[in-house]
């Protein structure tokens, strides 16, 4: 055991010059990584976890600077190192893996060539043996048929594959420290597991150190030796991974842990002060609301959705689970009548709606009864509409005419329902936080009291604590307004919290369906078991 840590950050403070003065993104952070250690930095957006690592790499953007503190990497003070030396260090000694693998790869260069570029840049190979070394690297990150894949372009590979290539790039020069910034966000759970297993295995194999930056406490606890929790630019707790899970000391860590969906927890367990039990809608509704039979969507020769039968009763929530490309989004878009099916029928409240062209559906009287909450709250709000205008949009188009004051009052009611402070109604999307934007999206969807709401990964872009609150809100709204939900997600644990029934999809077909409890606790399909096993399990 060496006494000197590989990376030692002491009293680090990073400042950003903004229009409204100097903002401290990171304050007095201490951290150290020993040789061979994997450190997890966990925090929600804006906690300063990424900025800390950028400061270590000295890749802060122009407005940012290290105001105080020291960064020492194997005895060298990185703060005072000339930029030319720093460039040499990046990639060779410390390398980074970023969140979006596609953006990190040059789209018009073969992946093998990109690995060669890094090797040549740092003098790790000669022109003669570059190809062989690049192929060896591809092999090392478990890419099947590396000789063939050497000539592949990034767009020919899946997201998980691309991330492996990025890892190969990062590890090409055998660095001593790997910084992985949300390396698996946006990847499917099974891919996430494969990528994380690979990172940890390679780290161990070459006695490398690593810093894993993530918002997922479960992921950090499952793969790291020690975990550091950050909140608002400060470190609130640092402890060995096992301890932080079993005995968190700081209230923020406790809250974060509590908000993480996990086996055995109910929706109300996720938040500190559970809301009072909601009074159900006055008239309990029963009966079949949606009946889908033999739904097919064909793109060229591919069946994206290959004959799906499903039904949703009134007041019921059904989860539609699967990995990217399984056809769950296509299915929901067809039910939502934004996309025309190739074949099959969709009966909504007894009426056949599959035959109405998607283009004509906005004017159909059923339009207001089927609504949707989108995955990305930022993308789904018009950047030039205020929150109020966004919420008012469906009311203006589809409800009876009402005066300005009545409309404002209705928007304020809706804002109240979704817990959005009314003074935020005049703001534009870019002036709202992620959770607030999600609330605007929900308010817009429920503005006309729809019967069926499709939730397309409504919390995928949100922090866990915000996710917990939003999930509770959705549950409350469902009960008080008597709506039905079709919850589309890749996360089985989140689906279990909200849904009565779960449908698991793969490659355009349904592989399993049943009550949430049955599917999650006693899955019959192998694929479901695989999905469940891929969810990171913290050390017990």
């Amino acid at each position, binding site marked *: 055991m060496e006494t000197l840590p590989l990376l030692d950050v002491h009293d680090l403070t990073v400042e950003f010059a*903004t229009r409204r003065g100097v903002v401290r993104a990171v304050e007095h952070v201490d951290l150290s990584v020993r040789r061979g250690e994997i450190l997890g930095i966990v925090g929600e957006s804006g906690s300063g976890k990424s900025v800390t690592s950028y400061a270590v790499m000295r890749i802060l953007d122009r407005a940012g600077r290290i105001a105080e503190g020291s960064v020492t990497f194997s005895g060298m003070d990185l703060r005072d190192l000339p930029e030319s030396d720093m460039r040499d260090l990046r990639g060779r000694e410390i390398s980074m893996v970023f969140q979006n693998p596609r953006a990190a790869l040059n789209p018009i260069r073969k992946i093998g060539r990109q690995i060669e570029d890094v090797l040549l840049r740092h003098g790790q190979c000669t022109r003669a043996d570059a190809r062989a070394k690049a192929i060896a690297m591809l092999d090392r990150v478990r890419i099947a048929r590396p000789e063939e894949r050497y000539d592949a372009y990034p767009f020919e590979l899946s997201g998980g594959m691309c991330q492996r290539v990025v890892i190969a790039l990062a590890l090409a020069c055998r660095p001593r420290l790997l910084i992985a910034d949300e390396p698996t966000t946006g990847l499917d759970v099974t891919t996430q597991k494969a990528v994380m297993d690979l990172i940890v295995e390679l780290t161990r194999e070459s006695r490398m150190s690593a810093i894993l930056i993530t918002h997922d406490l479960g992921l950090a606890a499952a793969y790291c030796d020690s975990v550091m929790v950050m909140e608002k630019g400060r470190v609130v707790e640092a402890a060995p991974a096992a301890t932080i899970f079993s005995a968190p000391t700081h209230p923020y860590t406790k809250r974060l842990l509590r908000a993480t969906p996990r086996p055995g927890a109910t929706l109300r367990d996720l938040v500190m002060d559970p809301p009072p039990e909601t009074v159900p809608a006055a008239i309990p509704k029963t009966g079949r609301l949606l009946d889908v039979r033999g739904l097919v969507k064909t793109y060229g020769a591919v069946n994206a959705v290959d004959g799906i039968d499903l039904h949703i009763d009134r007041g019921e929530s059904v989860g539609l689970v699967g990995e990217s490309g399984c056809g769950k989004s296509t299915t929901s878009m067809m039910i939502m009548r*934004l996309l025309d099916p190739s074949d099959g029928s969709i009966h909504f409240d007894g009426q056949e709606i599959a035959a109405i062209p998607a283009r004509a559906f906005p004017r159909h009287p059923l339009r207001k009864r089927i609504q949707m909450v989108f995955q990305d709250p930022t993308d789904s709000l018009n950047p030039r509409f205020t929150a109020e205008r966004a919420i008012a949009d469906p009311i203006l188009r589809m409800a009876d005419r009402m005066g300005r004051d009545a409309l404002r009052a209705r928007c304020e009611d809706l804002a109240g329902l979704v817990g959005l402070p009314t003074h935020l109604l005049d*703001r534009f999307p870019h002036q709202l936080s992620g959770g607030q934007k999600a609330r605007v999206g929900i308010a817009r969807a429920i503005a006309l009291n729809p019967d069926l709401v499709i939730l397309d990964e409504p919390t995928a872009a949100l922090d866990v604590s915000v996710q917990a609150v939003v999930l509770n809100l959705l549950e409350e709204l469902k009960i008080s307004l008597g709506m039905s939900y079709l919850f589309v997600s890749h996360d089985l644990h989140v689906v279990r919290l909200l849904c009565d029934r779960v449908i698991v999809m793969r490659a355009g077909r349904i592989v399993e369906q049943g009550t949430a409890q049955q599917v999650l606790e006693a899955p019959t399909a192998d694929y479901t078991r695989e999905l469940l096993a891929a969810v990171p399990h913290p050390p017990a």
Partner: protein
Amino acid sequence: MSATELGIVRPASGLTATLQHARHVITENPVTGVAFALFLVLILAAILGPSLVPYDPLATDSSASLRPPSAAHWFGTDQLGRDIFSRVVVATRLDMIIAVSSVAVVFAAGGLAGISAGYFGGWTDRIVGRLADTIMAFPLFVLAMGIVAALGNTVTNIVIATAVVNFPLYARLARAEANIRRDAGFVLAARLAGNTDARILLFHILPNILPIMVVQMSLTMGYAILNAAGLSFIGLGVRPPTPEWGIMVAEGAAGIISGEWWVALFPGLTLMGAVFCFNLLGDGLRDIVDPRRRT
């Protein structure tokens, strides 16, 4: 990291926020301030010019022809003894009218055609695209000359010709911007809210591409002035003795060799200043119009 993520969002409301933001943009980039000041001068000259100038721009005075700049005639006089300063100022109105109306026409026609092409794709896209290609296939100034020559020598036809040659710029820009937004979440949400395609185009997509269109408009304003002046310079469009920058440069061009440089120089400089002002204005306007810059 944006300020929003750090939680230092400030509520912005209406006019005061816009003014504050405008002030910030101008102080951050003084060139924008200069451009705005120039723009203001141009507007004032266009509106008030004819009633402010010291001489009648059409009054000839054979006893005072080709006088160099002096206290009595700031920019000198031309062959017919007309005061060049008065003519330059009075010409502002006509040149601005041509520029503004041609830009307005091309913004409406090219912008609408472009966003429809980008949003609907298919045949609409093909027709608009080929139309733009056809126009681009001609040397633009020659095309403008041809249009004016064919339709007749009037101000309206200069406006039409300038609009036509700029059509591909607007159509292509609007098409590209609308195309990347046609599948955006907020467009789907608008469809769910019961908006028809026409409404989505006009009230959801158009406002989002307006900032970039405004920049384009400002840039083409400069080009439109130049185009109108160019047409007049070669004898198409506005006819003498109407004061217009292009004609005045043309009239003075011969004089440069014989030493009467001021006859062509001052209208030319004004023309250059106006074009320059609109180009700079484009950048400044983009910053003010774009709400995402207000953080």
